[in-house]
């Protein structure tokens, strides 16, 4: 529960000394309650007060870091159950499972493939996050040794055997892998390892009650970086458990549940596992572990994650203006589109794929798609004409000819009038751009 200004005020020295930069303790308390100041700005606050205030103002779900350096992964830190209420923070990590029984060569290959896998979407690169070494033959220490040499991604070490885990943790040095997992049977040993090596630890219960008890016990043992596994291995139970843990953390502030979760793709084949991945991504998983390593499957998972974790308040945008695709010159075509990143980069990718050198005039539509912007009257003859005039495209080309997205063909007449340019209506979908330029464009502009 959020603290009120009065709750905070009670814990302050009430001397109104002003050292915090704010004239009175009450005013400072009000700023704190609104999240506009932090407690350490008051140099006189007592230790007990700090403990009391930080305890109850702590975020409902801990943010946990796995690995170190540039490739470290942060998970958790969620504050809402529904993305429209705010946004989901820290996109869930995708971990590729590698069984330790694979040969050295196979292991190398799998890890390298996972580390190199990336996808270009909306102008950004998206990649995978973790390598999960699964100890299916007791050789986790050797596999961990190899992985630390090969992998650029942080590791999850999966073994129920504390001996194996100890060897693997030694091999990882200070790489801060995630330990999977402490259950009822090996709790003390695994908790001790997490402490000794200062690593985050997965708590696995056979059910929610056991998970709660073990997590509480871990908290009492002073472990702060936990990840939870409710033990469910059936898709509906996974959904229910994930929801319960997330609600307990965020709505009820149940401390032992206030950690990110880990889930596994389940199924007999690729498609079934993708279904379970989609469910986990939508329903609160902090990490999704999968043994799928095909481009198809990973593209789907990475895209689903991007969609679910996009801030619903702010569409991803590009700046309006003139962009170059390839090496356009004064005879190259001019394409018109909106500044929604998805729209712009879809057009860009399709145009480059057709090896077409072109200028792209990007109209500021507040980051909305062609039809949305048209319907909202942000992509009109006037706004497009204004952009054409102001962006400097007129000086770059010899002929005033521009291609309009097929979806807004109705604008072409008005736009010709408003801009003085000749307008060619292009295909509806930008995927048709290469064919359009190969087969129709020359003929169409011959009339001007």
């Amino acid at each position, binding site marked *: 529960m959020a603290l009120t200004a009065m709750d905070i005020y009670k814990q302050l020295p009430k001397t109104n000394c002003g050292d915090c930069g704010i004239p009175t303790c009450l005013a400072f308390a009000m700023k704190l309650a609104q999240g506009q100041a932090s407690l350490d700005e008051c140099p006189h606050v007592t230790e007990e007060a700090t403990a009391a205030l930080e305890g109850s103002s702590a975020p409902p779900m801990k943010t946990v870091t796995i690995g170190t350096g540039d490739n470290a992964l942060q998970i958790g830190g969620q504050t809402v159950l529904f993305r429209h209420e705010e946004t989901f923070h820290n996109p869930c990590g995708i971990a590729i499972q590698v069984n330790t029984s694979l040969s050295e060569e196979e292991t190398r290959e799998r890890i390298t493939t996972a580390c190199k896998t990336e996808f270009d979407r909306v102008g950004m690169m998206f990649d995978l996050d973790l390598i999960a070494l699964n100890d299916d033959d007791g050789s986790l220490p050797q596999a961990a040794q190899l992985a630390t040499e090969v992998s650029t991604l942080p590791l999850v070490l999966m073994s129920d055997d504390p001996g194996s885990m100890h060897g693997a943790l030694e091999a990882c040095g200070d790489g801060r892998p995630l330990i999977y997992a402490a259950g009822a049977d090996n709790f003390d040993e695994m908790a001790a390892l997490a402490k000794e090596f200062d690593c985050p630890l997965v708590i696995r219960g056979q059910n929610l*009650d056991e998970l709660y008890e073990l997590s*509480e016990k871990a908290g009492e043992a002073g472990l702060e970086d936990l990840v939870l596994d409710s033990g469910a291995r059936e898709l509906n*139970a996974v959904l229910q458990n994930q929801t319960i843990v997330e609600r307990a953390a965020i709505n009820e502030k149940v401390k032992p549940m206030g950690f990110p979760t880990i889930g596994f793709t389940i199924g007999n084949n690729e498609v*079934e596992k993708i279904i379970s991945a989609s469910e986990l991504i*939508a329903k609160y998983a902090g990490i999704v572990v999968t043994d799928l390593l095909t481009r*198809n499957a990973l593209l*789907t998972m990475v895209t*689903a994650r991007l*969609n679910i974790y996009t801030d619903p308040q702010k569409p991803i945008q590009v700046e309006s203006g003139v962009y170059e695709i390839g090496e356009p010159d004064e005879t190259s075509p001019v394409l018109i589109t909106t500044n929604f990143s998805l729209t712009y980069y879809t057009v860009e990718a399709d145009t480059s794929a057709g090896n077409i050198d072109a200028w792209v005039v990007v109209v500021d539509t507040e980051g909305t798609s062609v039809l949305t912007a048209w319907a909202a009257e942000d992509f009109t003859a006037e706004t497009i004409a204004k952009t054409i005039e102001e962006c400097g495209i007129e000086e770059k080309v010899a002929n005033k000819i521009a291609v309009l997205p097929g979806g807004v063909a109705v604008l072409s007449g008005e736009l010709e009038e408003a801009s003085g340019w000749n307008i060619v209506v292009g295909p509806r979908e930008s995927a048709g751009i290469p064919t359009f330029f190969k087969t129709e464009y020359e003929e169409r502009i011959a009339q001007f």
Partner: protein
Amino acid sequence: MPLTIPKERWTAEVQTATIGATEEEGGTRTSTITIGGEQTLPFLHFEGETPNRPVIAMEVLDETPTGWPEPLARHYEDVWDDPAAWAQKAVEQFGADLICLRLVSANPDGSNASADQCAETIQSVLEAVGVPLIIWGCDNDEKDNEIMPFCSQAGSGERCVLGSATEDNYKTICASALADGHLIINQSPLDINIQKQVNILVTDMGMDLGDIIMYQVTGSLGYGVEYAYSILERTRLAALDGDKMLQMPMLSIVGSEAWRVKEAWQPEEDAPEWGPLEKRGIIWEVATATLFLHAATDILVMRHPEAVAYVRDHIDEMMSGQPV
């Protein structure tokens, strides 16, 4: 028990809707479909009842589709110039719960088929299959208003679903549905307030709450799914919180959205980084459908038979779960 299970105290449940009418009910359907009635968010059996499973409608076009990618086309090529045969295949071989017939041929920019032709197609489909029917116009308001009364009449008494009524165009379709005893799809462009408005307008004309299905426009995975996902979720939350005018079951169009995007059809030569084409579209449709199911969709309109089979299994699994 150390962990208290955090249950929401929802004050209401989703409206139920029954599609199709059997002989006793004045129609000729051999099966009917009941959807809605959820007392909780999707499949949370620990919290409330989900009395009716989400269903899968398979799409049938009333003219031969063009440009369908091969992995999809191969399943329909033998029937796609005959909507009745197509519907039959979808039901008998692919297990469609109902058929979503889209009257694309009526579009004036295309074949501009007449109202009579459309009505005939509807009759032939109703004769060919026993499952209930969704009848969707051609997305041209004027033409839809011209053909819908005839189409509605052609299915009179069958409790079909007519689509779609929008804020600016609901009167003709609503009057037709009322006259012939059908349900109606109320559509809004991803906007809860507009959705509510259409629902109010249509109920003002006399439509029962139990005869309305909401369609708030869908996007595909990678192309707008996140907006539709949240709109579905928000609408369902409002329903469970007691907003009568947002309590109807919801429909999502998955097949045509997913197969339109290039991830689903771009050949491997052009997109080697995306992996083999053979399964890509199926996976794309399946993942899109899964996200919508978990956001609270009651009717999924789908295309690829394999995708349908996978999603049906997933629904089975979700429905057979026990309260944890």
